[in-house]
């Protein structure tokens, strides 16, 4: 089964961290990071960023640790209107 990606948040008050720094905060190898997703500022004033990581590289308990939180749900979303059946 393919190793899925999970959504995590990291904290860094030293500006936008690069992927290597994000991996270091998470305690995973940089090869586990989703490079296409990157490091996404979600509340940069408070040093909060989102990343995606291979699920196998992190615990799935959802427990908070120093500098990071997750994994978080990444549910499917759909429009609240008619569907085009074409």
């Amino acid at each position, binding site marked *: 089964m393919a190793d899925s990606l999970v*959504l995590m*948040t990291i904290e860094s008050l030293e500006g936008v961290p690069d992927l290597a720094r994000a991996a270091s905060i998470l305690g995973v190898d940089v090869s586990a990071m989703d490079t*296409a*997703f990157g490091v*996404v*500022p*979600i*509340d*940069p*004033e408070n040093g*909060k960023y*989102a990343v*995606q990581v291979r699920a196998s590289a992190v615990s799935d308990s*959802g*427990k*908070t640790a120093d500098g990071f*939180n*997750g*994994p*978080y*749900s*990444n*549910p*499917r*979303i*759909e*429009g*609240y*209107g*008619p*569907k*085009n059946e074409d």
Partner: protein
Amino acid sequence: MRVSVIVSMPAEQNLRSLSLAAFTPGRIAAPTLTAMRSSDLYIDPKFPPLPLSAKRADGIDLAMASADVAPTFVTRGTIDTGSIERMLQENRGIEIFADPEIGLFETPHCGLAAVGTKSDVESKLDVAGLLAKGLDGRRVAVAVMDTGINLAHLRRRGLRPKIDRQIFWAPPGVAHTPGQFAVDHGTMCAFDALIAAPACTLLDFPILKSTTPGGSAMAGFLSDALLAFSYLNTQRTTASFLRKYKALVVSNSWGMYHPSWDFPVGHPGRYADNPNHPFNIMVGTLARSGADVLFAAGNCGADCPDGRCQGVTAGTVSGANAHPDVLTIAGCDVSDTRVGYSSQGPGIAGMASQKPDLTAYTHFVGSETFGTGTPDSGTSAACPVAAGCIAAIRTKLPTGNTTSKDLFSQLLANALPKPGPGSGWNKDYGAGVIRPMAVASQLGL
């Protein structure tokens, strides 16, 4: 603020005459009530004084309830709330009572057929009045977070849409062709935003076209929305954006239909009820930065929920759709009656409770995206209708002058209230049906 009141007055000859004239068969013309007690009180001349019987210690004397002998008469009018005390002091014997709006609890609309047209929506929103005030959305950006926009279809439907091709984000694998996507849900939303704000500039964010494995034709993943919001938040502070636009309105006609799409209840990474979920943090950041962020309430109303709700109709206003910093939009038809699929409050525990906030129009013939005569439906249509109203108001109310929070408060305070248990917010309509002209007038625009 003027309010409707019921006024009781001690009997006087002119009141008896008016009452007798109104209620005696064969007498048509009633004399006008001229005995205004104060210019602060406006008496409704079409409402005849009604004789009120005398109250005795052992009950009510019904014999005293006729116009020729009644000791008191009641009528109705309006008065400024600040004048009530003085009015009572200056006029002995007068009493003033609240005359609250009452109405039937209408049956929510559940049929497939459209109710009304775009013209009806324009009329209800007083778009002509907005345009006369110069409130047309010019230099306001409206981001449509959806399946992408088809400008050619909008033009065929008689609109003259503007789009900003520089500010655009699409999920990986999706063509970078703003304004040239297949005619679908996003085109309907763009059409509906342009009803009240025909001169706004559309920003195309086709987040529901994810090609992530498992996605469907009109679906994406929350991480797509997260990336789009983060990109937009970066863009809106650039010098170029600030030079071009006075304000940013973000319309979101999407959400999570069923709890099974999320982590289980109690998981700390769950989305639906978790203000610390990264997307909910992101939404708060964008809203605090000055964007007016709107979300549709959802289509899981108890009367006729969408099949994707799988029968779950409680606590369905969830996730960012129940975020305290966004305006959550329920849907009604052009007769101001809730559509039965519009999700009802309160918001899910953990997020804002008083959701939806406000109601806007849906289920009318508008974009005809899905075929001739088909309605623009779902709270998906209501959300951009409201977004267009906000964009129109923002034409002369830049974000720097009035925050989202303050503007949203004005929208709630000036909404057309709808009957419900208790006063103020109710679970079906929030504060009521959107009335952009009342807000514009209130703000002196």
